[in-house]
């Protein structure tokens, strides 16, 4: 052993390299290639929608977002004047989605708390299946149910709300027509996003560190006291993230909203009135009789919707991941 040698030098960690065998190289190449399909698909969606919607975007400029007129007029000479503005649809989408959140978030959090902390084992198992099942219902079923079952009931609820809270602007309405309103569309959407928010919240609540739960109980907390002191602070991030995932779903929902909403190109905040906007539903409504220029506008609308949901989903996922990781 040569201790005399300049032994001060700290040994560098040796790099371990393996040369994978050919079969492994092929395997890795194939798997890696396929794993990029998500990237490819997402990029292609953006590229093609942009390509086909480009004319509209160029023609309408920022007005595509800020105007609320949607018309194609062909004059006698065959010259087409088109106005495409999404403002009413975008605002309508946001209004309906927030009504949905307003209903769904409390119900989901309560359900998640009930499932995690109150329900007896048997009830819990059944209810968890039921909630998961809800997520598997086709959206057209929600549309059908919303139109034929919910709407008659919700019309009555809307009348009640108007009767007692009509003095507030958003619960007032110009004509007593309560069907196919943003309110009803919001309720249908809320039922659709409840399973998403509930299952995310439940997962986060179930991860509440047991030692903190015990600490609260050992200090003489009731179950509710424990939930407030420990579970809700811990799970808040998950609830927010789950709600945003639900919001993303609500933004993009099409046929269910279409069935129960009267789409009108006018910004309307009176949620009980039969007049609302929704980008996704508007696309299928206009699709049937759309000429080439309108198809381009619908493509552009699809692009806006795509970017919007992508953005909300991105935020939601980063919130959920962060809360689960930080353990807070």
């Amino acid at each position, binding site marked *: 052993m040569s201790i005399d040698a300049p032994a001060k030098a700290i040994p560098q960690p040796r790099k371990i390299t393996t040369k994978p065998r050919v079969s492994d190289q092929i395997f890795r190449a194939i798997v890696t290639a396929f794993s990029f399909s998500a990237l490819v698909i997402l990029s292609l969606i953006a590229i093609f929608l942009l390509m086909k919607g480009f004319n509209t975007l160029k023609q309408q400029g920022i007005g595509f977002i800020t105007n609320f007129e949607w018309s194609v007029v062909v004059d006698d000479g065959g010259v087409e004047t088109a106005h495409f503005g999404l403002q009413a649809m975008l605002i309508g989408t946001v209004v309906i989605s927030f009504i949905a959140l307003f209903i769904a978030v409390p119900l989901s959090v309560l359900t998640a708390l009930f499932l995690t902390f109150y329900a007896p084992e048997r009830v819990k198992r059944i209810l968890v299946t039921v909630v998961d099942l809800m997520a598997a219902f086709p959206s057209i079923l929600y549309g059908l149910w919303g139109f034929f079952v919910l709407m008659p009931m919700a019309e009555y609820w809307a009348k009640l709300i108007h009767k007692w809270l009509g003095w507030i602007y958003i619960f007032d309405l110009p004509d007593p027509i309560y069907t196919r309103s943003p309110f009803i569309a919001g309720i249908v959407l809320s039922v659709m996003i409840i399973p998403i928010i509930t299952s995310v919240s439940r997962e986060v609540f179930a991860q509440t*560190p047991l030692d903190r739960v015990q600490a609260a109980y*050992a200090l003489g*907390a*009731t179950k509710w006291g424990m939930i407030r*002191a420990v579970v809700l602070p811990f799970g808040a991030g998950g609830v927010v993230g789950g709600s945003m995932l639900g919001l993303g779903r609500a933004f993009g929902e099409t046929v269910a909203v279409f069935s129960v909403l009267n789409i009108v190109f006018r910004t309307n905040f009176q949620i009980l009135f039969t007049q609302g906007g929704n980008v996704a539903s508007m696309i299928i409504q206009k699709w049937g009789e759309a000429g080439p220029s309108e198809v381009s506008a619908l493509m552009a609308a699809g692009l806006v919707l795509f970017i919007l949901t992508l953005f909300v989903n991105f935020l939601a996922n980063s919130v959920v991941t962060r809360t689960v990781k930080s353990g*807070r």
Partner: protein
Amino acid sequence: MNTPVKENDGNGNLMSDQTNNARPSSLSDVSANRERNKVGGTAPLGTGLEARGVHAWFDKHHALSDVSLDFSAGTVTALIGPSGCGKSTFIRTLNRMHEFIPKTSMAGQVLLDGKDIYEPGIDVTKIRLQIGMVFQKPNPFPSMTIGENVLSGIKLAQLKVDNHDELLEECLTRAGLWNEVKDRLGAHAGGLSGGQQQRLCIARALAVKPKVLLMDEPCSALDPGSTLRIEETISQLSKSMTIVIVTHNMQQAARVSDYTAFFLSDGGPGQMIEVGPTTEIFSRPRDERTENYVTGRFG
């Protein structure tokens, strides 16, 4: 069943317990010691905590069999024994934390100042206010500040306190943490070291003024320096309350406790083999198994 020591301490109510198969553990020394205790078994300490014929089950598994132990007011009792001997289960039956594990059951009585804490209709949260607990791993609430942590029990139990600041200082001082944190009470508890966090948990438990403090291996996650600080804290606290501490560390039991109870499981349910003044358990235990354990022959 071959129970090593069966001595009747002449305590009539122990014998009269129906669920108990007339097998009181050796409590004579404890009872005798109670006489020379600093506080004469009266308020504010109460008369202490007493377990009578306590059994515990996890589903079908019988984890703890027939433990009767008397924790006199103002004493420190150490529960020692190898892993799986039921000592942690036992300490959790003492403030009704046992029942949080699904499918558990128990038998016997636990008396606080002579009243059964398992009495039907009793408000269990009030029991846990009087019998505080400190856990193996420090578990302060990370979303709260240091000050909020200490006062969290007050808030959770909705107690009325005249002067929060005073209580805060008192509890942190008794837990031996005041000087270290007095300038950063508004800081989050996560920034404290492990030992400080554990003392914060002790302060938190003290804030609701419990008569009894249960400590389930409070130092097992800490370094030796922090362990020493906690032990000092325990000695300080023992002047004013009854303490039960589970520990794996026999030196620790010897250092901090007045009495020691030895638990063992011979493959069946855990049992209490022997209890007595700590010095005697460590110097001349009556049971061979106790001797084997304290001399380090197994466990």
